[in-house]
Structure formats: structure tokens, C-alpha cells
């Protein structure tokens, strides 16, 4: 795997500068059922296609941001701070 990502603060960097935070999921707002809790903790959609995901600029400004990436081609369509996308 190799591609470049654009940090909203620092600009274009190699993907190895960043830590992957997984696909964006929503934490339950109220106490979930056991099934919902397990799904939230252990299940991922793992789509082949466009995915919204978390990235952390570990070797840079240490900002968490979100990206929309095509998991088949690693083409990153958009990046932004949470709430911007």
C-alpha cells in the first residue's frame, strides 16, 4: 500500500506519515443492546469502494482528520477536519 494523503494543516505527505484510525463509525448515544455493542466494537463495514475514515498525522501536526478514500484504488477524494466533510 502506498499513496499520498493531504493533511488539512500540513499538505501532501506520504501515507506512512499518518496513522490509520479506521472507518468512521458512530458511537451509540444511549446504552446499546449486547448485539449493538458487539457490532460497534468488533464489526466493520469494510467496503470495497468509497469509505470515510479517520487519519492521524502522527509524524506531523498530530491532528485527527477524516478522508474519503476509495479502498479499491487508494484514491483519496476529499479530506477535512471532523465536521468539515
Amino acid at each position, binding site marked *: 500500500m502506498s499513496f499520498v494523503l493531504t493533511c488539512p494543516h500540513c499538505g501532501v505527505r506520504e501515507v506512512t506519515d499518518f496513522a490509520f484510525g479506521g472507518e468512521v463509525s458512530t458511537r451509540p448515544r444511549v446504552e446499546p443492546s449486547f448485539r449493538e455493542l458487539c457490532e*460497534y466494537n468488533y464489526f466493520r463495514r469494510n467496503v470495497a469502494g468509497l469509505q470515510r475514515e479517520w487519519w492521524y498525522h502522527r509524524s506531523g501536526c498530530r491532528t485527527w482528520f477524516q478522508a474519503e478514500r476509495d479502498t479499491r484504488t487508494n484514491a483519496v477524494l476529499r479530506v477535512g477536519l471532523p465536521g468539515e466533510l
Partner: protein
Amino acid sequence: MTRLAAQPGERIDRARALSFTFDGRPVPALAGDTIASALYAAGRRTFSRSFKYHRPRGLMCCAGQCPNCLVAVDGAPGVRACTEPARAGARVEHMNAWPGLEHDAMSAIDRVGGAFTPPGFYYRTFIRPRRLWPAYEFVLRHAAGLGRLPRVQAERDWRTEYRRRHADVLVVGGGVAGLSAAIAAAEHGADVVLADEGPEPGGRLLHEGGHERARALAERARAAGVEILCSAPALGHFDGLVAVWQGDTLHQIRARHHVYATGAIEQPLVFAGNDLPGVMLSGGALRLAALYGVRPGERAVVATTSERGVEAALALSALGVEVLAVADLRPAAGASFSGWTVAQARGRAAVTGAVLEPLPGTPGHGAMRLELECDLVVVSGGESPATALISQAGGRTAYDPARGHFALALASLPAGISVAGQVAGYGGAEEAAASGELAGLEAAGAAGAGGARPARPAGPAPLPAVAEAIPPVTAGRGRAFVCLCEDVTAKDIHRSVQEGYDSIELCKRFTTVMMGPCQGRMCQLASVRTMASETGQELEQVGTTTARPPWSTVPLGALAGRPIEPAKRSSIHGRHRELGATVRWAGDWRRAYDYGDPEGEALAVHRAAGLIDVSTLGKLLVRGPEAGEFLDRLYPNRLSNLKPGRIRYGVLTSDAGRIMDDGTIGRLDEESFYVTTTSSGAGAVEQWFSWWLADWELDVHLSDLTQALSAVNLAGPRSRDILSRLTDADCSAGAFAYLDSRQARVAGVSCLLMRIGFVGELGYEIHFPAAYGEDVWDAILAAGAPDGIRPFGLEPQRILRLEKQHIIVGQDTDSESTPLAAGMPWAVKLDKEEDFIGKWALARATEHPAETALVGFALADGYVPTEGAVVLDERGTAAGQVTSARRSRALDRVIGMAWVPAALAGAGTNITIADDGRRLEARVVTEPFHDPAGELLRS
């Protein structure tokens, strides 16, 4: 042996002699020589012993392609002697032969073992009885293989750097096509990198009379700003990133456009004895002569499928090599031996003769034969375009019967890739140069450099076909090798097909053909061809195997590279060295492990006082109106109600309720909390905090102070007195109680003092600006000298904390551990009304009691169990494991912690520990071994 007269364009400097050793004997060389050229000039013909049969092998390609000259240089195995520059004093040794290269005992396999060692023999022969496998394996590992790594390597003896390079255009291959492409692109304003595997760019020009042109082109490229990387093979094309290995640097090159001008690889011919030293590719023979002034042989027989061999014969003849015959596999070539081939090379240690015969299916086959005495058989079995990297990028190949090789399907090239020169089918130097220029313009345009976007001129026509298909000659005269790396013969491929492994990919896995160091360079075409004739298929039907990286052999160390995180040292590190500390890695940190006497250091903490550098702790400042709420959401216990000046222990859990990290949280004022984490978890906790902060968007600001602050822990019964001498703050038990924190000056330095006790005695953690590290350290040691204070390291700290059964996250817990099972239910406040990370999972965990529990244990026996030793249940089966164990001199016994089945977790239960054949009886102890009531801690 003398050299040829000075050759135009030769790489050696005859005025500068040097010397290295081969197997301990000195070898004379000239500056510019490779190890191989110097050895060949000194008369050596055998360079290695083959992988399986231990047959002698000699120089073949002289271009770093084939496996025949692999040697060990200064202890590093797998170096190609034909490209490795000869350095004065280098220690060169042979590989894979015993006792020596000339007389290799294992070569008996070649003479007697052939019938017993077909492909796959070891899978079948050595599977029973199973218990003997270790013995078989030992023998087999020594019999086969390509060298041996040194058992021990000095730390940081050799290591590599990563380099990232972004460019407009990357050109791979520095022959005439690649140079022309680089020049065209750079002169149109593109930022160009050119990587070439040879020591200087120029490719075939260098040894085929075009050296002046090559050097002029390289000069022009440099003048245009091209960055030229020499001795730098490209390893693979990974999603647009090309890895290029150059000595101790791994370049990771990302370009907008790629030009592959990787050329073509001259192919050997398959005949009996085709691997004998003295059988050489025409390019190899010419390189030896033209670049190094070394005569490849005295009397030569040439076998070729194209003009290339004929031209080589003429060139060799001009150098004074007596060319006895040219067998041209093209029936209508017009030469005297048209339609003939070399059917056999004779000789034991090296070529002494060659047998020429007409090809099957031509007049005279079976009736005519000619045997010639010679010491050199020059072969040129056509050229196979080096398409591997282009295939990795998405290009496809198709068999071209007219040229006898798999050619690139130009229409299949993905966007962003151009090709030029021989790999694209442009054979002559002029055509290659024109195709290179075209590719360079295309690349500059695609990369948007300089605004130049030239119209695509009509390209030169590819050269007409010159090579005929080579029929494999497998007459029963001895072994005819298809694959030199893995010692696979034509007969082995025949057997593979008979066994049913009749597709090329299956055959590859069964025989290991193409899996060796040449990565199919020398054997892919021959394998496919042999396969086709064995199965009666067309070559196109057989197809090729997948071209996987790495395309060139590369030391693992070059891939591993240098850690991105630099080693971290505390600001007091120099003092630890001066005090004679044993320094070891602890995560990213270099830490003082002990000062020579870990058990004595631990005792000093119990009896008087000790001082440890804990600067490695993660330190986060959490500030803001909602800081308390933020921490309440992150930790299972409540922190918002913590009073300023007080400290609480906290364990961080994930939403699955698993322990992630632990540490202390001190409230400095209404809106500020000072959070410490474990040393190894500092980065992960900072990342975890900032992730939730990004999601929750609370009015909180995070500052990572890990590197900015140093910290020491002053601990022991005398620590209060020692501290009092250095500060004006009231340190009395009443004014500064357990779990209190204070801002105060210590030795004149503004510090944060925290009364906490990881090591179980009265103690103070002192945090202060890192710049004052040594001042504070020195001041405390000086002040404590009358009390017998001793510095203590990580190891005594581990003994001390074990005496208190304080866990180390990651040592005593793993990714499955919850605070409930790890004996810390008090750190979880499920009655907290607000939601927190892990609440739901922990609430469920209380409903289902854990099957295992973390407990302490004590051993009467003096033996310290290995961390990881197994705890047995009543039935004697493995049911848990030891996580920590140490000898405690203070307690005069061995103590530890272990995960045990819940049924065995009660205090006083006897448990059995199995450790490397021993059975140890231990007793469960659930409260701290030392100061169980915490009286000393609170004193």
C-alpha cells in the same frame, strides 16, 4: 594472468593497483575492477557452487543478473561479485561449498544423487518418521542454500536510510533509451530522477563501442538537472511508488510519470553442461573484455539465435580470441553452421570442449556432429524484455513468435507509464534513442512540466524480428539446466509435467524454477518454452508467471530501514552513563536498566532512599472548562470531583472494556489536569485522547509535555528528609499527604511534586523542565548522600513494584484484560451516571464473572520461573501463564504475578507452574507482598 591491451572506454585504472582477499588469499586488482573481473583476470573460473548439486559455476552475465557469482563480502552473503566494486582490503569468501570451492564434498550429490533427488524429493522422502525431521532439516539446510548470515551482528553495525523523493518523472534504466528520455524530459523543465543498476549509466553502449556517446549523454542529462542514481536497481512498482535500492539508501520515489527503459536480458541456451564455468553469455564475455580488459577465453565456440552472437564473435575475434565456430540457430543465416547448435559443453571443472550438432528437424540431424576443444562457449539465446516492473505497474505481455519472446503489449500500458528502448521493442541504439526521446517528451507533458506539451511525433518502427525460437536440447548427455539458481533441469520440468504439475505456476511451485536470486531473468523464457514443448501447447497458452517484487535481490536490512522514530534519551541520560548504568531499550527509550546491582538497589529503596529517572512517563496537560468532563468520559472512575492538589490513579479502557494504559491524574487547578501515562503508552494515549477530543469537540486543550519535562522518583523511608533539605515547601506528613500534589521549588528549580508510590515506599515524583534534568538529579543525590541514597534503574523498579503487585500494562495485561479480571475492580465506577468509554462492556463483564484472574504468587523454591511459563489447572492442562517473576531480597523469596483460572485465584491456593520441564509449586497471594496495608506508602 595479464590483461588485454588498453580498451577504449575501459573502466579500470591501470595505474592504481589494489588488493583484496578471496578465501584468505590475496587477489590483485585494479581500481575500477569488480571483484569478479579481478578474480577472472587472476585465473579463477569457478565462482560458486550450485544450490542443490553443488556443481561448479562461473561467470555468465557479468551484469548482476544471474546467480553464478554470488559470494560473501566482509561477512555479508549474497553479493554479486560481477557488479560489486573491488575494494582494497575487502574480505571475499565463497558460499555453499565445503571444504572449498575447488573440492566441494557435497558435489557427490551431482555425481551419484541425481536419480534420488528429483524436485520435491525432500517433501516425500523426509516426512517419516516425523521425529527425525529436525535431523533431516539440519542436514538439508546445510546442503542447500546460498550462504550464511553471521549469527551475531553488532548493534547498528550497518543500517540503511529511507529517502523519499517526489519527482515529475522517474526513468528506470540508464541505457541510451533511458538517458534520452531523461534528457528530453528534463530539458522541457521536468524534475527527473534516473535510476540505473549499473555503476555508470550507458547500458550496452558502454561495452559495445558507444562509451563516448554514453558519457556524453550522461553529461548532458546531469547538465539538464537529472538526478542520476547509479548502482541503484529498482525493486518494485507499488501503486505508483518505486523503491530503488542504492547501497545503504532505499529511495522511495514517487513520480507523476514513469518511463521504463529497462532493456532486455540476454538469454542462455539449454543444452547438456550449459552451466559449466566457461559457458558465458555474449554480453558477459564482451563486458569482461571491454570494461575490464580481461580476455574471457583463448578458444571459443559461439552459439546464437540472433545477430547479437555473430557480432560478439567478431568482437571477440578482434580481441584475439580464437573463434572456432559460430553455430547459428537460424537455419537461413548464411553462416557455415547455420541451423546448428551446441548440443553439449564438455568438461568437469570448466569447459574443455563443445559438441556441435545440426538442430532437430534439419538435414544432417543425427548424422553430423563436430567436437571442438575450447575453453569458452559463448551463448546468445535471444533477448527477453525486462518487463517485470512494468507488469507490476499493470502492463501485460504477449508472446511474439517472430521475436521468440514475451513482448510488452503497448496498448495495455496504464496511464502514467511510458516505455522506451529494447523493453518496448526498439532494438538498435538509434531507434532506442528516438523512442527514449519520445517517452521523455510524453513524460514531461504528462507531468505538466514547463508547460511543454509536445505533439506526439510518429515513433520509429520497431526492429524486425531477429531471433528464432530456441528448441530446448535435452539429449541424455548430462544435466541441461533451465534454472541455474535452483538447479532445475529440463528433465525436472518433464517430470513435473508427468506428475501433473502441468501449468507454469504449478511447475514453478513444484520445481522452484524461477524462484531463485535471478527472479526468472535467466530462466523464465526457457521454462515456458520447455513447458510448451512438454505439453504440446503454444507459448502464449503457457503464459508467464506473475512478476512479483523485489525485482532485484536486496538485503532485508535495506527494506527494514532505519526506524522512523529516533531513539529517545532523557535529559539525565549522560549521568546514568557516568554512573555506570547498563543501558537498554525500553520502547523508543534508552533507559538505565540498573547500575550494576539491581537487587542491592531495590534494597536501598526499602532501607534508605533511591532515585530513579522516570522522564519516560507520558505527560499530558489537559486544560479547559470541560477538562473534568473530558476525563470523566475517558476513565472508568470519576475525575471531575478530584480536588485541586489531589491525585488519583486511573486505568484507561477501550469501549470493549480492555485495559489500554494506566497512570495518575493530578488536578492542578479548577481547569487543569496533569495526566501521566506509561512510558511505552505515551504516544498511544495522546493519540487516543486527541481522537476523542476531535470527535466530541469539548472545550479542552491538550498539550503533550512528555519531552518538555523530566521527572525523577525519590523513594524510600529517608526520602522526606532528603526532599526537605532541598525545598522550602512543608513536606511533613500532615501538610503533604499521600496522593497530594504541590508546586514547589526543589534545588532552585520550579517543580511539580506528587506523592505517589509505584515502588511501594514513601516517595515523591518530581516533574520539572527537562533542561534542569542533571541539576535536580545531582542535587538530590548530593542531599541524600549522608542517608545512603542510591540511584536505581528499571530492573530494581520492577522488583519493587512486583512486591506491591502493581501491574505493568502490557507486561501483566494483554489486549483481552479488563480491570475487573486484573484485580482492579475499585478503579471502575459503574455507578457513575454519565457514560464513559468502556462502561457498557464493563457493566456486562460484571454480570459474567471472568474465567481467569490476575493474582500474585510466591515460591518457596529459589527458582525464578520464566515470564510466560504455564500455570496448570487441577487436571494438569495449561490454564494460565506467569506474567512477571523476580527474586526479592527484601522478602527473601521468589514472587510473581500470573493469570490463573478463577477457581485457583483465592488467596492461599496452591498452583503448579510448568516451566521448561520443571514443575514448580507456588502459593497464591492476593494482597501486596510488601506493606500490604499501605502504611509505609501513607506514612
